[in-house]
């Protein structure tokens, strides 16, 4: 069980955090891993804070509870930083990945002294440039793959092509944009020094 990676997603209803967690589970599954991908269902409304989870391991996963001490946290909407304790239980040897344009000083205050690594990406910019619309989940999916190194980036990109073909079978015109969003996001995610 020692190699199990636990990830917690924070987003708002409608931003696709749940979908992103399921796509991440899919991608890891395709590299031969054991996976869990599950949202925490609450009163779901567009814009309400939601949480989703991933466990990824090379041996079978037996535990069935939410994740309280994640290795990584992904924040899909930076307005959550003020209302949700996103770093709660987050391991210091882990990292947090945030969709934001905020700088180091501002984030330090919002992250309540979290001592681990902090990565940021402007997922809005990536999404607008590649998809022409604001869908932050695809860039955030790429960002967490890059930061957590749970799989080889080239393998991930190749695999996602297949996943998008399946997911967007009825909207094939968005596949190319999503692929571009992934590739751009892999380059854009940066550690805050």
């Amino acid at each position: 069980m020692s190699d199990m990676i636990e990830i917690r997603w924070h987003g708002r209803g409608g931003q696709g955090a749940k979908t992103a967690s399921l796509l991440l589970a899919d991608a890891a599954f395709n590299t031969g891993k054991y996976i869990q991908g599950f949202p925490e269902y609450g009163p779901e409304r567009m814009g309400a804070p939601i949480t989703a989870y991933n466990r990824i391991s090379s041996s079978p996963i037996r535990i069935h509870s939410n994740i309280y001490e994640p290795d990584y946290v992904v924040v899909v909407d930076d307005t959550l930083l003020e209302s949700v304790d996103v770093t709660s239980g987050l391991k210091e040897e882990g990292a947090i990945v945030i969709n934001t344009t905020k700088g180091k000083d501002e984030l330090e205050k919002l992250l309540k002294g979290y001592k681990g690594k902090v990565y940021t990406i402007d997922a809005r910019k990536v999404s607008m440039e590649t998809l022409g619309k604001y869908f932050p989940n695809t860039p955030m999916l790429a960002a967490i793959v890059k930061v957590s190194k749970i799989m080889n980036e080239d393998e991930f990109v190749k695999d996602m092509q297949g996943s998008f073909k399946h997911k967007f079978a009825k909207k094939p015109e968005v596949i190319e944009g999503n692929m571009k969003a992934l590739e751009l996001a892999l380059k854009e995610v940066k550690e805050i020094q």
Partner: protein
Amino acid sequence: MGIRERLSGNEAAATAMKQINPDVVAAFPITPSTEIPQYFSTFVDNGQVDTEFVAVESEHSAMSACIGAEAAGARAMTATSANGLSLMWEMIYIASSLRLPIVMSLVNRAVSGPLNIHNDHSDAMGVRDSGWIQIFSETNQEAYDNLIMAHRIAENKDVLLPLMVCQDGFITSHSIENIELLEDEKVKEFVGEYHPAHYLLNKKEPIAVGPMDLQAYLFEHKYQQAEAMRNAKKVILEVAKDFEKMTGRKYGLFEEYRLDDAEIAIVCMNSTAGTTKEVVDSLREKGIKAGLLKIRVYRPFPEEEVAKVLSHLKAVAVLDKAESLNGAGGALFTDVTSAMQVNGINVPTCGYVYGIGGRDTTTKEIESVFNDLVEDSKKDRIENPYRYLGLRKE
């Protein structure tokens, strides 16, 4: 050697139903089981099954349609949760007393009220003595496997009882996890064709189904139902043996996890068993002899076998994911303690009600139960047997 896949528990149940390809499915949507009839209806629409799908207007009608179909000689299935099962209540008893081997996928959820859509076992517990076989599933894999085995058990001539396969709402029903599926043709061969001995559409043997049954015979008919339930134990094990030959996956009436040499143990059902296994392993590393008894077959309750495998322990905790409002403990707790008493086993045993209405159950909480048991095992007698786990005190 199986198909490696990743599916949610609901997808797993719907896939099993697709491979079983029953004659009739009648269902009404209710969270968290909604996806099962939803996926199944697409299989019907795509021509992947040749099932008659009946989109009924309520769960009472869903069970009524299943009863009608089975009585006519067809194989029928349904899926539901919580209040959906409550609305079936009248027909649940009629299905079992007419000895119709209907198979249900029950995705466990708290029964209202107040309204809650999340997991506990209050729905299954409400019908625990209604004459349905109840099999619980820790994972999506078990929810799938148990459904594949279900018809062979229910339709056996010594059983002829309806059967429900339970899994935890959201916790497994909506979590994507690895699963090993069987090939369609293997499932078809394993499940076999349904040839009931007596059925309404048999023009060579006109029969009546469900006539009045008064003082002269009802007692004997209830006895026959009870006998059928007792017979089910043997049949469940026989079917599990065949299933193991096909898949390598071994199933019993329950699963003993590091129980042989354990001194303290937890008894529980469904997904909490997985979390408990994790804790058992970590406690073993610290030298604490913890174990788990995961009940798979809850009805019929394997009372003799349960008492026997718990007999060597110093203390036992039984976890109930349903509050029995009776002042004397949860249903599984009273079943286990009654089994021990009847079989002359005297092991200090306490009950914990936990996880009500979707309250998450963590490894830390499970560990706290084992820590309690370490203390309990030093005493001759449990002083406070009716306990709670994860209940906020303020």
